[in-house]
């Protein structure tokens, strides 16, 4: 396992590059994101004496809560900030962003880049709104205000370029088509806040949710009246869920119980990995797109962990 310390910054989110299998972006906030600066780390994995080398850092006035690599330009990525701003960075240019948007009225908790059209990204905010953006446009393209509480998570469909999901503190998940002013579908997925949603990469009607109720649920959008499977096990809120890019039955989750777990929803005993080396809330987890079995995690303990899980290769 590689470890990297995000000294002075509590990890909020991380994402592997969609272009380079050894590049990782980590979004962090000073003072647990309550007040103070943010920092975006661009890390080279498998580089240098310790297995992780800093390629670039970008500092921001306010904490960073999420990050998404551009799917169109291998050097660019967008961050979501506590002051409501979004910033587009170019890793070839030091210090300052190449674009800055400030429309959200409160913390932006999620940003996700479109996997298919690759020309836009979606953001979710504590101001209850969802917005979509194009990197070259000075204003957002569209805003949706249907959720009645904070939007914590937004995720594009891997199969339909105009469809995305959102998860909210109003205990619902909504499915959207960007061509429509209203949501296509609303699922009352949990009886507590929903902090994370992701799409299954191999079954285009399947999504996964993680909630403050400690559970992960898998949903078939064609039969939304109840979940396909509920995965209990975490002892506190589930902060992030991610579906494996390599296998349709594998899910990773990060939790306020300080653990990261990997689940095989097709197995009789679904929990297949328990990583408990973090010593604070774990907020970020991501699968390497091009190195099967490798995952990265980040936590409030100011540590990034990068590990290869042999059990994932066997499944």
């Amino acid at each position, binding site marked *: 396992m590689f470890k990297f310390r995000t000294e002075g910054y509590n990890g909020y989110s991380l994402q592997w590059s969609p272009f380079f299998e050894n590049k990782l972006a980590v979004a962090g906030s000073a003072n647990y994101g309550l007040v103070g600066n943010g920092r975006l780390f661009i890390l080279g994995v498998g580089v240098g004496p310790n297995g992780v080398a800093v390629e670039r850092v970008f500092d921001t006035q306010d904490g960073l809560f999420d990050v998404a690599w551009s799917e169109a330009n291998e050097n660019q990525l967008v961050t979501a900030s506590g002051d409501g701003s979004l910033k587009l960075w170019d890793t070839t240019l030091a210090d300052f962003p190449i674009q800055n948007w400030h429309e959200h009225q409160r913390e932006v908790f999620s940003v996700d880049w479109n996997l298919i059209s690759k020309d836009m990204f979606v953001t979710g905010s504590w101001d209850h709104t969802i917005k979509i953006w194009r990197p070259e446009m000075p204003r957002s393209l569209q805003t949706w205000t249907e959720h009645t509480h904070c939007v914590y998570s937004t995720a594009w469909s891997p199969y339909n370029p105009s469809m995305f999901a959102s998860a909210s503190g109003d205990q619902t998940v909504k499915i959207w088509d960007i061509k429509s002013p209203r949501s296509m579908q609303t699922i009352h997925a949990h009886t507590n806040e929903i902090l994370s949603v992701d799409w299954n990469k191999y079954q285009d009607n399947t999504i996964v949710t993680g909630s403050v109720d400690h559970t992960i649920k898998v949903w078939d959008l064609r039969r939304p009246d109840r979940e396909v499977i509920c995965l209990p096990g975490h002892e506190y809120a589930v902060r992030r869920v991610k579906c494996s890019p*390599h296998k349709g039955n594998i899910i990773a989750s990060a939790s306020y119980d300080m653990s990261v777990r990997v689940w095989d929803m097709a197995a009789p005993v679904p929990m297949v990995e328990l990583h408990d080396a973090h010593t604070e809330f774990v907020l970020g987890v991501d699968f390497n797109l091009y*190195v099967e079995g490798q995952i990265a995690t980040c936590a409030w303990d100011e540590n990034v962990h990068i590990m290869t899980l042999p059990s994932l290769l066997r499944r």
Partner: protein
Amino acid sequence: MSSDAAFQAFDHYDFDKDDRFQAGLPSLLKNQEGKTESERLELIQRARWFYYTKFVQAFDYTEYQQWKINRNPTDNNISDKQDDPVQAKDSSTDDNETPKRLTFQEIVERIEKGEEIPGIKQIPNKLNEAAPSEAKLSARPKPWEVQQRSSEAIDSSSGTNDENVNSNPTNSHIL
């Protein structure tokens, strides 16, 4: 030797008078034209670490960096400061003070009392004036797209897909 002592010894090692190290330096710096000063300093510092670890004494570079950051800035002499990539990088944005770390509860209490939180840097709210990079790489197929295409390829006996799969250096052996 404690790591503290090792780090200090490394800081005070005279690389300028080490002929073997100096001999290797030009080739290292040959292709660094486009790099910023802090990137060059980082490279030199890493080269020094690599050399020192190989020929003098081994130590953990991350721990060394942490030690460097945590050290009282007044201990640094001027040449130290120029040689330190971390500080070189930070000097443009702050004064390098590392304040005492507060717990979550302490921060909450300070916010509730309206007290100042130490160590907040002022970052200019401005855009980069340089020209952004142009995309050079074409999109790399996702694993699920590759699997889908290979099954389609089998159906149609077409072998022309997935030219991009190997367009990037493969480092999958790194772990």
